[in-house]
Every structure is written in C-alpha cells, then in structure tokens.
C-alpha cells in the first residue's frame, strides 16, 4: 500500500469514528428535557462534514485498491465471510449515513429555533440512535475486515 492510500484509509477511519462519537453526544443531549441546541447543532453539522470526508477518502481506497489487493486475500483466507457479509453490508449501509447525518443536523438546527417542539426532539433522538447503531455496526464490520487478513 502506498503512503497516500494509507493516509486516506487512516483519515476514513478517524473521521468516521469521530462522527459516530459526535452522534453519541448529540443523542445524550437530545435525551435531556432541555438540550443545549446551540452546542448540538454545531457538532451535528461537524458530523455531516466528517461523514462526507470519511466517504470521500474511502472511495478512492475502495475503488482503486481494496477490490484488487485486499478482497482476494480475504476470500482466500480463513474468514471469507469478512468480505462476503461484513464488507458487503458495511460498504452499502455506509452510503446511507451522510444523508441521515444531514437530516439530524437540520432537525437540531430547527429545534434551536423551536425548542418547544418536544415531539420532534424525541423523533430526532430516535433517528440519532439509529444513525449511531449504523455507525457502530459499520465500524465493527471494518474491524472484522481488517482483522481477517
């Protein structure tokens, strides 16, 4: 692997993990009766930017390197399911995350101006929980893939 590809992969992982952590913080605040919407709207938008960065950096690595250099080794190794299930699922559900993150950021920005909308706070908390679950599942799948080589 070239240094550039390694840098892209590291950026993909760090940006993704930090964005997942941000969604955890957003969820914890949304579970309060009176969240600090100024704070969580700022960090929710940071999560959108980080997921897009993670998306962009993984794209080049995945398209130019993974399929030819990594995938054949996983399929020929002891844990071919790491690609057949974990990578296939991860690469596809990851496509959804930036859209969901954008929706969460817009919701908390709206709640900043309408803190009295308690039903929206609860729905946004539920959506954030789902995004957090997808994020964690994606990260854990990445660990299986890395550990299978």
């Amino acid at each position, binding site marked *: 692997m070239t240094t550039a590809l390694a840098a892209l992969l590291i950026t993909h992982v760090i940006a993704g993990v930090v964005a997942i952590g941000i969604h955890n913080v957003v969820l914890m605040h949304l579970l309060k009766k009176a969240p600090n919407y100024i704070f969580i709207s700022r960090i929710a938008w940071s999560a959108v930017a980080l997921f897009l960065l993670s*998306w962009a950096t993984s*794209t080049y690595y*995945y*398209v130019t390197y993974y*399929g030819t250099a990594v995938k054949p080794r996983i399929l020929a190794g002891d844990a071919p*399911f790491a690609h*057949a*299930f974990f990578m*296939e*699922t991860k*690469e*596809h*559900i990851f*496509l*959804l995350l930036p*859209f*969901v993150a*954008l*929706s969460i950021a*817009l*919701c908390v*920005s*709206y709640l900043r*101006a*309408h803190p009295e*909308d308690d*039903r*929206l706070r*609860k*729905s*946004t908390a*539920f*959506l954030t*929980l*789902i*995004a957090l679950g*997808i994020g964690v599942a994606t990260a854990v799948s990445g660990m299986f893939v890395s550990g299978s080589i």
Partner: protein
Amino acid sequence: MMNSSLYSWVRSTAIATIVTGLMLAVLIVAAEEIPVLKDWLKATFYHHWLGKGALALGLFALLSVAFSMQRSTARLSSIIFLEAIAVIVSVWIIAGFFLLHLLKLV
C-alpha cells in the same frame, strides 16, 4: 421566514432520505441478482459502488430541492419518525440479503 424555510428543508431532506434509502436497498439487491445491471453500473460509473453512490446522491439532491418547494403543514416529528423506520427497513434489507447470500439461500 427563515424558520419556514428551515421547516421545508427538514421535511424535504427527510422525505429524500426515505426514498433514497429504499431505492438504494432495491438497487443493491437488484445489482447482485441481475448481472446486467451491475455491469451497467460498472460500465457507466467505473465501479458499481460509485454508481450506487452517484445515483443516491443525484436522487437525494433532486428530491430535497423538489420537496423543499412544496408547501406543507405536516408534523415534522411524524416525518422524522417515518424516516428512522425507513432507514431501519433499508438496512435490514441490505444486511439480510448479504446474510442470505452468505448462507447460499439466494
């Protein structure tokens, strides 16, 4: 005025996410089951994953803009709840398909 505009964007991106998520789930399963479709994605977008991403981005952008222009008084909390359910369904379709594929049941 600004709040009304923000309401429209919250609503339109939620609807766009619902449709995009379900479209992605159907496209992903279809591309695995119909080799011609996967070949078309590869030939058109260089890689099937890039094709799925590009189509999802395009559809999401189109629907977000289109629905943001539409007037509505629908409750945002209901739309966001529906979005969460649609995302769960999309993820289950994708993960379920690859699990069945791994078990050689499809």
